[in-house]
C-alpha cells in the first residue's frame, strides 16, 4: 500500500511532514553528512538577521532533566553572507528550504523577507517572533498580540510565499496569537519555541548559562508543547507545525493527532542526526498498521 505522505502548509507542499527545526541544523551542511535531506519534508534554516550576529559568550548550553537549556543568541552570518555563501549549498541539497528570519524591528523583518523573497530556492518563511535569548526582537514581539499581528501583515505584504509565524509558549494564551496570525493573513504557525528556563550551580551560586536564562528544549517540554498545539487546534483554523521534544516516531504521531499538519525535529538532531529518517520509517509502519492512506488523516484526529 502506497501511503500519501504529502502535506500542504499554505502554498507550500511538502513531500512529508518531517522538517528539521531552525537552529538545530545550521545551514544544512553538517547534518547532510549523515542523512539525505531530499528524503525529508524540508529544513528550516538557522535564524537569519539583516546584519551578522556573533552570538552569546560561553557557556551557551547546559543539560537539564530530559532537556537542555540554550542561549546561543541568534549567532548567524547575516543576510548578505547567507545569500552569497549559504544558499548555493542549500540549493544542492534538493530539499525544501524554509528560511527563518529574526529581527529587532518590524522594518527589519520586512527588509529581510523582501530581499530573500527574490531567492527561488527559498520556498517559505518562518518568522521568529519568539527567541527567548535576545532582548530586542525576540520574545518582546512574541509576547505582544498587536506586534505579532503587524509583523504578520507587513511580512505578508512583501511576499507571496508561505509565511509561518513561530510562536512563543511563554504567553498566557497561545491560541490568541494564532488567531492574530490568521486574521493578518499568516499561512501557518509553528509551535512551540523554547520555554524560558534557568539552572544554577549550587556550589558557586552562579547561573550555568552566561545569559542567565536560556530556552528549554527536549523531551522535558513535550507535554507542554502538545497542550499548546491542541489549544491552537481547538480554537483556530490554521495549519500548525508542531515542535517540542520530539525524539521518535511516536512523538511525531502524537503531535499530528493533537493538531499538527507537520512537525519539526530540534534537539534530537544533536543526539541522533539520523532521527528524521528513522521517524519517517516509524510513521510509515504506524500508518500501515492503522490502515491510514493519507498522513493528513492524522492531523487533529484526537478523540476527546
Amino acid at each position, binding site marked *: 500500500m502506497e501511503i500519501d505522505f504529502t502535506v500542504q502548509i499554505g502554498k507550500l507542499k511538502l513531500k512529508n511532514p518531517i522538517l528539521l527545526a531552525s537552529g538545530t541544523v545550521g545551514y544544512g551542511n553538517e547534518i547532510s553528512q549523515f542523512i539525505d535531506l531530499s528524503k525529508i519534508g524540508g529544513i528550516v534554516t538557522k535564524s537569519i538577521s539583516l546584519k551578522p550576529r556573533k552570538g552569546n559568550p560561553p557557556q*551557551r548550553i547546559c543539560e537539564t532533566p530530559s532537556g537542555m537549556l540554550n542561549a*546561543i543568541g541568534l549567532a548567524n552570518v547575516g543576510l548578505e553572507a547567507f545569500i552569497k555563501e549559504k544558499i548555493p549549498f542549500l540549493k544542492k541539497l534538493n530539499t525544501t528550504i524554509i528560511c527563518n528570519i529574526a529581527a529587532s524591528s518590524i522594518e527589519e523583518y520586512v527588509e529581510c523577507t523582501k530581499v530573500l523573497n527574490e531567492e527561488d530556492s527559498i520556498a517559505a518563511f518562518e518568522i521568529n517572533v519568539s527567541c527567548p535569548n535576545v532582548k530586542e526582537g525576540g520574545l518582546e514581539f512574541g509576547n505582544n498580540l498587536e506586534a505579532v499581528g503587524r509583523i504578520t501583515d507587513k511580512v505578508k505584504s512583501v511576499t507571496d510565499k508561505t509565511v509561518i509565524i513561530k510562536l512563543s509558549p511563554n504567553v498566557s494564551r497561545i491560541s490568541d496569537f494564532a488567531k492574530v496570525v490568521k486574521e493578518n493573513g499568516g499561512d501557518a504557525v509553528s509551535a512551540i519555541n523554547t520555554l524560558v528556563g534557568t539552572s544554577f550551580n549550587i556550589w558557586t551560586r552562579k547561573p550555568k548559562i552566561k545569559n542567565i536564562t536560556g530556552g528549554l528544549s527536549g*523531551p522535558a517540554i513535550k507535554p507542554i508543547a502538545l497542550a499548546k498545539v491542541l489549544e491552537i487546534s481547538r480554537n483556530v483554523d490554521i495549519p500548525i507545525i508542531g515542535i517540542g521534544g520530539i525524539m521518535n516516531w511516536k512523538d511525531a504521531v502524537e503531535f499530528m493527532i493533537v493538531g499538527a499538519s507537520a512537525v519539526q525535529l530540534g534537539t534530537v538532531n544533536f543526539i541522533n*542526526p539520523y532521527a528524521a529518517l528513522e521517524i519517517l520509517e516509524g510513521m510509515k509502519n504506524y500508518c500501515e498498521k492503522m490502515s491510514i492512506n493519507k498522513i493528513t488523516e492524522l492531523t487533529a484526529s484526537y478523540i476527546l
Partner: protein
Amino acid sequence: MIIEKARVISLSKISSNYHLIKVNSPVIASEIKPGQFCNIKVSDSDFPLLRRPFSICDVENDNLIFVFDVHGEGTKILASKKPGDVIDILGPLGNGFNLNGNYELAVIIGGGIGTAPFPYLIKNLLADVNVKSFIGGRTKEHLIKYNLQNIYVATDDGSEGFHGNVVDLFIEEIKNFSTTNFRIFACGPNPMLKSLQKIAIEKKYDCQLSVECAMACGFGICQGCPVEKSNGDGYYLVCKDGPIFNADMIIL
C-alpha cells in the same frame, strides 16, 4: 564522521579517580587522529539526554581507548558498563593536533584528565622526535601516567613531584632542555591553559592548546561551544574549528 555501536571490551581503574574504557569501533578507529574526540551516548534513555565528549586517548587496532573521571551522571553510567555492553559513539570529531613540521622535541603538558589525548599523540609522532611529558594534578591520586614517556610530575599539594602547578614546573625545566626547537601540546583545565597561553605568546613558543567546552552535538549544528577569536571577529566553535587551537588564535 559516523555513529558506531561499539562493544565494550574492557573497563579498568587506572587510579582511584580515573577509569579506562576500551571499545571495539573499527571504522572510527581507522579514521581518528590524535586530538580528535568522540561524542558518546552512554544510555538508550533520555537520561542523560545528551552525548558526552571524550578525547581519544589511544587506538589499538580496531579498538578505541578513552580515559574518564566520574564527575556526573553520564560518567557514572559509563563507569558501570560491562564487557559486551554496547555504547553509541559519534566520531571522529574536531580537527586534531597538527603534528606536521620540523620540531625535535614534543613537550606535552597535561592537567588532570587533560593528559587523556597524549598516548595516541605520542604514538603518531615521527620516530626521531623526543618527548617530555609534564603532568599535573591536585594530588598524586589525580595524576594519569598511562602510556606517557619521560614524565615530569607536579601536584598542587606536593604529594608527588614538584609542589605547584604543571605550567610552573614546565617553566622551571625549560632551561634544562637540550633544544629550543620544540612544540608544545597542551590539554587541561582553562586556568592552566590560560597561564600557559600567556607564556607561549610572550616567548613565541610553538604551542597548540586542546580546549574544553560544554557542547551538545559535537559537529557544529547546535553552536553551543563558542571560544572567542583573538582577532575580535566573534567566536570559533570548539567542536568543529577546534578543539585544538594555536595559542595565539583564541581568548580563553
